[in-house]
């Protein structure tokens, strides 16, 4: 009980702390690094939730690829620490924070209220630590969700082409090609 609780609280704290740092750090690179740490911690939370495959994918895709991309781009831009990290507008800022806070409150209240409505056992059932879990995922993915999977593949292809096209504006690095 405690053995499960302590890692959770530690990881939760780390996640929330670095998430907070992510959105408040004036330097975008720091933000990115903090976010990477958040991701890694989340990956470990996933491991803890008996979803090692997803955790690993989280590491590979998010922490290893997406965030590296972020960091790379940021470093390319050579951004200084921002003087004004946040958007202008007192009223809209208030609205933004208020709505976010309200949303969080509602979500938490909703979660607490709806505890009994969910058809789950109180403890983590454990879909399986075994390697079979990834096989199960694969079976689901290639049977039930195969269409979505293919569409996603197509989307990725499009995105790859699109991203290249967007960044190849005149004056870009390949302007003379």
């Amino acid at each position, binding site marked *: 009980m405690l053995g499960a609780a302590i890692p959770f609280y530690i990881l939760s704290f780390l996640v929330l702390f670095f998430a907070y740092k*992510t959105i408040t750090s004036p330097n975008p690179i720091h933000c990115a690094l903090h976010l990477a740490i958040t991701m890694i911690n989340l990956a470990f939370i996933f491991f803890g939730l008996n979803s090692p495959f997803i955790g690993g994918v989280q590491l590979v895709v998010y922490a290893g690829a997406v965030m590296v991309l972020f960091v790379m781009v940021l470093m390319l831009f050579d951004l200084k620490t921002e003087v004004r990290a946040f958007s202008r507008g007192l009223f809209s800022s208030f609205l933004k924070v208020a709505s976010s806070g309200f949303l969080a409150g509602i979500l938490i209240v909703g979660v*607490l209220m709806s505890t009994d409505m*969910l058809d789950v056992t109180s403890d983590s*059932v454990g879909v399986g630590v075994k390697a079979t879990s990834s096989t199960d995922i694969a079976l689901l993915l290639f049977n039930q969700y195969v269409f979505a999977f293919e569409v996603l593949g197509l989307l990725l292809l499009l*995105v790859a082409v699109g*991203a290249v096209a967007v960044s190849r504006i005149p004056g870009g690095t390949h302007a003379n090609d």
Partner: protein
Amino acid sequence: MPMTEAFLNVGLNHYLILSALLFTMGMIGVLMRKNVIVILMGIELMLNAVNLSFISFSSYSGNLNGQIMVFFVMTIAAAEAAVGLALAVAIYKRYKEINIRFFEQLRG
């Protein structure tokens, strides 16, 4: 001691509340930050929060569909990040800054 028990007995709710908080943080980041890339990071945070809920539901209800969903979300997040960053690069090339307000110039 119902209170301590509630804290010690880590269950679905704990993950969900963590997810909600994380989501809120991401949202604040999206809403408040000026830098496009940081906003993209906020979006990633939100997506991660959602992923977390999916995973915890999946884990607590013994249903793998949640993980599949997370898998898709991640793919899409990667795609979104790629396009978003490409746009950011384009904007940066033009303005030497990546304030979100420059995206207004994208309108036709």
